[in-house]
């Protein structure tokens, strides 16, 4: 009778983490940052129809990097969970924290028990009544949840982008400044990113019920001047 090879748990986890990290590193980077009037989310994305950033609920946005089909599946699960909760209780009971925790549950379960870990990193952002109640939850492929402030960087080349963003970020920036800083962080000194290679969306503190708004090509161009 043959015995299965013994794989120590440390090695098992490391292999899975390496697999997920490699998959995520193939994708492009995404940046979210607080500006004077809410949260701006900016990513490199040449496609105008396959979105990385989308609306989950009145004040909550979702962003994913890595494998498109996997984070899109999670996005739909999030919309379902949020709409169900809002229907069952009240719209104000839907919050980013509980959504981020649900994502963490799914991702950690897939990481340790699934056939393969999901090759995604997620951002669940919520715009509050003021800047101090804005929320940026960054969820990693293994279910780790990071509660971040000011800005958040997801995906591929995140360390270099993060250091550039740290250097350029100021609190209470205007929307133009925020987008310019984000683009500069995404592209670096030697590359130039064109407006049609970008996907930009905002969670605006606008007094309306639905705060999510996509910024289309022409408007990005106008904002960048």
């Amino acid at each position: 009778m043959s015995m299965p090879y013994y794989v120590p748990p440390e090695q098992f986890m490391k292999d899975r983490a390496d697999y997920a990290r490699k998959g995520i590193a193939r994708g492009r980077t995404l940046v979210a940052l607080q500006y004077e009037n809410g949260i701006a989310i900016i990513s490199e994305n040449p496609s105008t129809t396959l979105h990385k950033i989308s609306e989950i609920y009145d004040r909550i946005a979702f962003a994913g990097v890595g494998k498109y089909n996997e984070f899109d599946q999670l996005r739909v699960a999030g919309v379902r969970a949020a709409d169900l909760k809002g229907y069952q209780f009240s719209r104000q009971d839907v919050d980013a924290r509980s959504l981020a925790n649900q994502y963490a549950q799914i991702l950690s379960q897939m990481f340790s028990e699934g056939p393969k870990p999901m090759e995604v990193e997620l951002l669940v952002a919520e715009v509050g009544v003021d800047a101090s109640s804005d929320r940026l939850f960054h969820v990693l492929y293994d279910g780790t949840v990071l509660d971040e402030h000011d800005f958040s960087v997801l995906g591929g080349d995140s360390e270099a982008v993060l250091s550039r963003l740290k250097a350029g970020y100021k609190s209470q920036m205007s929307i133009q400044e925020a987008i310019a800083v984000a683009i500069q962080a995404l592209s670096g000194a030697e590359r130039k990113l064109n407006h049609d290679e970008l996907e930009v969306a905002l969670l605006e503190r606008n007094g309306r019920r639905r705060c999510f708004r996509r910024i289309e090509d022409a408007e990005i161009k106008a904002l960048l001047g």
Partner: protein
Amino acid sequence: MFAAGSDPGANFGELLKRVGLSPFASHSDENDLDIPHATTCVAMRCSGGVVMAGDRRATSGNLISHRSMEKVVSADDFSGVAIAGAAGPAMEMIKLFQLQLEHYEKVEGQTLSLEGKANQLSMFVRSNLPAAMQGLVVVPIFAGFDLSSKSGRLWDYDVTGGRYEEKDFVATGSGMLHASTVMRVAWRRDLTVDDAVKLCAKALWEASDADSATGGPDALRGIYPVVASITKDGWSGISNEKLSQIYGEIAKEVGSR
């Protein structure tokens, strides 16, 4: 422990269901209940879009149960629903319909076509048929601005979910006969939005004058019918100041008869 997908979270009711202890009976007999009913709503096409209006009264038998009910609401930016019938199921249907349109938009990344929305509402009305057989009838009007044909369109429904597109105007509820007559006499294809708003206000006034279940303008409390237009710029409610002015003109006209 529950799987991540079927975890009831903090919901105790769901938890009871999962462990088979839910105390809620699945149905009850609603035959003898005296429940609030919502009454007259109208909608008409005009040049540039549609106008919808509904009175504010809900009645239980011969009693007035609410004076400020809103039976005309926006379904999304470019469409609205007006509902007559049993108030409870009607409000629930509107809520579910609004949620459905938003849910579709978020999951699919684009809005439904106007025709698609009208069809969706027809399925909601049809699924209410068993309740309608027990007396909980809900009959909506659906209207909106069709972004593909650049025009206003409107539909009315029957209790079985039958959906009928109307070319000019439509009324529903207990005061529908009186309201329709007013509209039939004065409606023209080329009405402006302002004219259509006035005509809807007038139709509701005449209905309230002849039908006890339809509420008229209540100047003492400042409660006026809900009137809204839907054009290429989207849904826009008519303000109370504007309505009070329109009803002032109607009062003068009635006084001079």
